[in-house]
């Protein structure tokens, strides 16, 4: 592994990294194959997808192992060079060299399937994090946190593995397709393939017997291909293409059961809402294309942005446009409305697309173009910026909405919105690593939660917590425990994954940024933690505790989603489910109590719950009270996956370099206490029945708040009623309104004038003014109507003549004036 060390400079990335482009290609092939021969295979069609994604997962694990080697080789190559230059000055690096000895493994391997990956992540040495005291004083950037920045003196570049094929050339612009593998891409490769694999397995049970079984798996494959292509995008053009492809797959999968109107409506809504943001994406990318001297190359754009070769205005405008794209794709306020509706899709799809992968595309895009955002929004030197504000609002807004949902999936959807807000906020305050780390951990526990909810819904055939659930703990203990573990991770209870990532975000909000830092967002984040704890406790209570309220099927209306499954079960021959427990047969589910789910549903849950426990240790900090953490364990995530090079604002940025927050025991304690407080409050409220129940019916203020939440802050009303309605026939309606008011006015005016004759002294002025206005309006409307009526002949030529005449006159005016 250290063979390449001698040849300082070039480091061989390894076979799998060089050829990672096959991963999306395999998935694309799987899509085509499933569509082509899937029908003939019947239920075995899923095996194409599972085999492909399994292969890709193994590939991704291998790529991660090679990436681990590659980072270290690069580092040692850089060190060797440094040693050759000056032998004695870099004590710290020499020290770190000696430390190679203990590459001790981190504590537990949790799961056999993950052991490879954990190896890649945890068994390593971390020179980056060590010897703080030795080098602290001479660190060049010792600002914000008031401590030495480890990265500053151990600078070594990890060249991203790039490949690009020229697709076509037009003039001097090359249109390319390619791959760009750096830390975050490799990380996403692992996350996407793992979750996709688990979701594939889960789905074989969940949608068994669906009449569009092959269609479903084909689109899962296409989605995986698009997402993998997205994270590996080498240029902005490819980024946009894959972004759109992901959106298309989302559309197809949300509307999987399109026979029911709400489902197809939700699919359309998701698609159209995303279009709004996509305009921002296009405009932003076009601005960057021209600002960076007509290039699509992501690395080049970021490098130029960091080097200050793109004007600040261009970067600012571009990043604001791109934020619009993030708002739509990653469900940020005010374009978040599609995400909860997207729960109309099958639950595994919700887990894959709307929790773990697709919705983080926006976050990933920001992270990918971070040089642009960093310099455009002056993240390093400000105390408030658009990105952080959007994220902060989303954290609280999403969490608030999660309280009033009775559909378990909608709770989780709003929770996703809120958590994505955390990520965006972290990017906004400059805590890049924290954001990606939260993305990483969130993917596991949120997928776990969604699949858990799917498992419950599979048993009770509904998603309504209030009507059909309750007391599920006794029926489905295994599902309950995995769900509880993932919830603990989401809330951020101490050793679980969410604790570490959320804490890093909060620490980032308190320590990074310019003067004054981003303290406001620390408050927002802490408040969000409290709310998260409370609504998740509510969700657990309603689902797993209390009395079972289900078992009355046939009379209640189901959630929008499970109905078709049942139909399909009834329609199709359900004998194929024989290898499973009887619980999976919906006929059995209708009578008697719900049962625990089968192995194909439970095993993915176990794996995700295990990851929800341990994923946080991949970036365990080594500072503050955690000073004792061994080097081989601490900050592995940051060390491995954070890009190191000129295209990332660690080096060469105009406004301050990216830095990392310290572990702060106070913040950690406060956020934990807030989380426990949230749990406690919710426990008291729901389990014990304490507190002012029924306040919403007694107190006007509380009721108003509740109504506001139930109506989702009226965003849907705004969009469908005001905006869409406004476009439906604005001219016709406005003209109609004007006409009626005008004509009525004339009539009224005449009548009023007669009456006013008796008392014209009394209110002469008032009357005259009103009359004048009314008559004037009427006359204007009538006269305008007469003129425009004759002009509307329906002859295109005449319209054209008027149009061109006006244009030409304008041009003449410009010529004369200018």
């Amino acid at each position, binding site marked *: 592994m250290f063979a390449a060390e001698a040849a300082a400079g070039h480091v061989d990335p390894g076979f799998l990294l060089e050829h990672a482009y096959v991963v999306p290609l395999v998935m694309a092939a799987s899509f085509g194959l499933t569509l082509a021969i899937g029908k003939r295979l019947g239920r075995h069609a899923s095996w194409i997808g599972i085999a492909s994604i399994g292969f890709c997962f193994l590939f991704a694990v291998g790529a991660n192992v090679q990436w681990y080697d590659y980072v270290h080789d690069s580092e040692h190559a850089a060190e060797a060079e440094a040693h050759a230059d000056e032998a004695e000055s870099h004590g710290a690096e020499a020290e770190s060299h000696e430390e190679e000895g203990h590459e001790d493994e981190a504590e537990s391997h949790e799961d056999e399937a993950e052991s490879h990956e954990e190896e890649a992540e945890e068994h390593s040495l971390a020179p980056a994090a060590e010897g703080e005291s030795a080098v602290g004083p001479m660190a060049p950037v010792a600002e914000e946190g008031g401590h030495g920045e480890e990265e500053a003196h151990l600078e070594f570049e990890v060249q991203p593995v790039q490949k690009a094929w020229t697709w076509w*050339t*037009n003039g001097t612009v090359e249109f390319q397709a390619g791959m760009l593998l750096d830390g975050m891409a490799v990380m996403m490769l692992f996350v996407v393939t793992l979750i996709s694999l688990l979701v594939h397995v889960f789905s074989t049970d969940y949608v068994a017997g669906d009449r569009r079984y092959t269609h479903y798996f084909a689109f899962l494959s296409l989605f995986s291909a698009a997402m993998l292509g997205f994270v590996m995008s080498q240029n902005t053009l490819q980024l946009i293409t894959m972004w759109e492809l992901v959106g298309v797959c989302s559309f197809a999968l949300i509307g999987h059961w399109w026979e029911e109107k709400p489902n197809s409506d939700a699919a359309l809504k998701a698609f159209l809402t995303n279009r709004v943001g996509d305009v921002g994406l296009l405009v932003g990318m076009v601005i960057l294309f021209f600002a960076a001297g007509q290039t699509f190359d992501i690395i080049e754009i970021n490098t130029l942005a960091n080097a200050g070769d793109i004007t600040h205005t261009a970067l600012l405008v571009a990043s604001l446009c791109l934020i619009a794209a993030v708002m739509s794709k990653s469900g940020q306020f005010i374009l978040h409305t599609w995400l909860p509706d997207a729960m109309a899709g099958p639950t595994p799809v919700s887990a894959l697309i709307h929790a773990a992968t697709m919705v983080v595309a926006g976050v990933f895009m920001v992270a990918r173009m971070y040089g642009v955002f960093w310099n455009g929004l002056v993240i390093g030197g400000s105390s408030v910026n658009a990105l952080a504000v959007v994220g902060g609002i989303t954290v609280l807004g999403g969490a608030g909405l999660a309280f009033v949902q009775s559909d378990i999936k909608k709770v989780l959807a709003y929770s996703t919105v809120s958590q994505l807000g955390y990520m965006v906020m972290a990017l906004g305050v400059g805590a890049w690593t924290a954001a990606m780390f939260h993305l990483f951990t969130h993917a596991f526990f949120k997928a776990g939660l969604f699949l858990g909810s799917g498992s419950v819904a599979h048993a009770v055939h509904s998603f309504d917590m209030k009507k059909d659930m309750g007391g599920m703990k006794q029926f489905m203990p295994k599902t309950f425990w995995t769900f509880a573990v993932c919830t603990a991770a989401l809330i951020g209870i101490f050793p679980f994954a969410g604790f570490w990532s959320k804490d890093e975000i909060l620490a980032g909000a308190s320590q990074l940024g310019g003067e004054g830092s981003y303290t406001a967002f620390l408050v927002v984040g802490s408040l969000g933690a409290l709310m998260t704890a409370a609504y998740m406790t509510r969700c657990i209570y309603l689902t797993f505790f209390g009395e079972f309220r289900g078992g009355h099927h046939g009379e209640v209306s189901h959630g929008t989603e499970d109905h078709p499954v049942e139909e399909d079960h009834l329609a199709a021959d359900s004998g194929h489910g024989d290898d499973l427990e009887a619980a999976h047969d919906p006929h059995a589910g209708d009578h008697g109590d719900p049962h625990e789910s089968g192995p194909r549903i439970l095993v993915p849950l176990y794996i995700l719950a295990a990851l929800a426990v341990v994923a946080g240790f991949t970036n365990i900090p080594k500072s503050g009270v955690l000073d004792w953490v061994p080097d081989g364990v601490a900050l592995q995530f940051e060390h491995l996956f954070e890009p190191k090079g000129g295209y990332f604002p660690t080096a060469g940025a105009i406004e301050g370099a990216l830095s990392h927050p310290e572990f702060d025991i106070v913040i950690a304690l406060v956020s934990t206490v807030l989380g426990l407080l949230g749990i406690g409050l919710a426990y008291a409220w729901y389990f014990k029945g304490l507190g002012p129940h029924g306040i919403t019916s007694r107190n006007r203020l509380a009721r108003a708040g509740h109504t506001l939440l139930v109506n989702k802050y009226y965003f849907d009303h705004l969009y469908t009623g005001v905006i869409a309605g406004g476009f439906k026939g604005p001219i016709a309606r406005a003209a109609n309104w004007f006409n009626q008011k005008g004509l009525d006015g004339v009539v009224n005016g005449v009548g009023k004038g007669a009456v006013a004759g008796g008392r014209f002294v009394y209110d002469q002025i008032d009357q005259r003014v009103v009359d004048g206005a009314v008559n004037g309006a009427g006359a204007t409307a009538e006269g305008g109507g007469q003129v425009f009526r004759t002009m509307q002949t329906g*002859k295109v030529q*005449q319209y054209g*003549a008027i149009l061109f005449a006006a244009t*030409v006159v304008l*041009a003449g005016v410009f*010529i004369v004036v200018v």
Partner: protein
Amino acid sequence: MAAQNVFFYVIAAVMAFSAIRVVTVKNVVHAAMYLMIVLAGVAAQYILLASEFVAATQVLVYIGAIVVLVLFGVMLTRAKLGQDVNLTNDYWYVGAFTSVILFAVMASALLDFFGDEPLDRAGAESQVPANTEQVADAIFGPYLVPFEAVSILLLAALVGAIVLARKD
């Protein structure tokens, strides 16, 4: 006056006259004939501009194909073959106004901007522009993709025209 200029002004005068006749003459077939004269004049101007390949294409495509097509159109739609007093519509003065003002605007802008710019700009990239070999190199080199796109466009137009015009 340079010989090139003599030719230019003679041809330009004929073209301008014919172009105006195309849109003012009262006989549709005559309009097509005037159009042919304009198109031939354009081809001649291409030759004066040393773009002989474009000139050849102009003759082949425009005079050879498009004018014939237009004549077919005249024939198939059974336009009156004699005088037709009703060729302009009721608001032709708007069009006349537009085009006169447009010409004034364009002429003043052109004279203002390119006042005495010679055709052969000093320091231009090459002094032998657009001979056939160079055109071929350009089309099948950097402009290959637009070229292919045009071929698809022609195919689409072909299909579209057939779909529109065939009798069901």
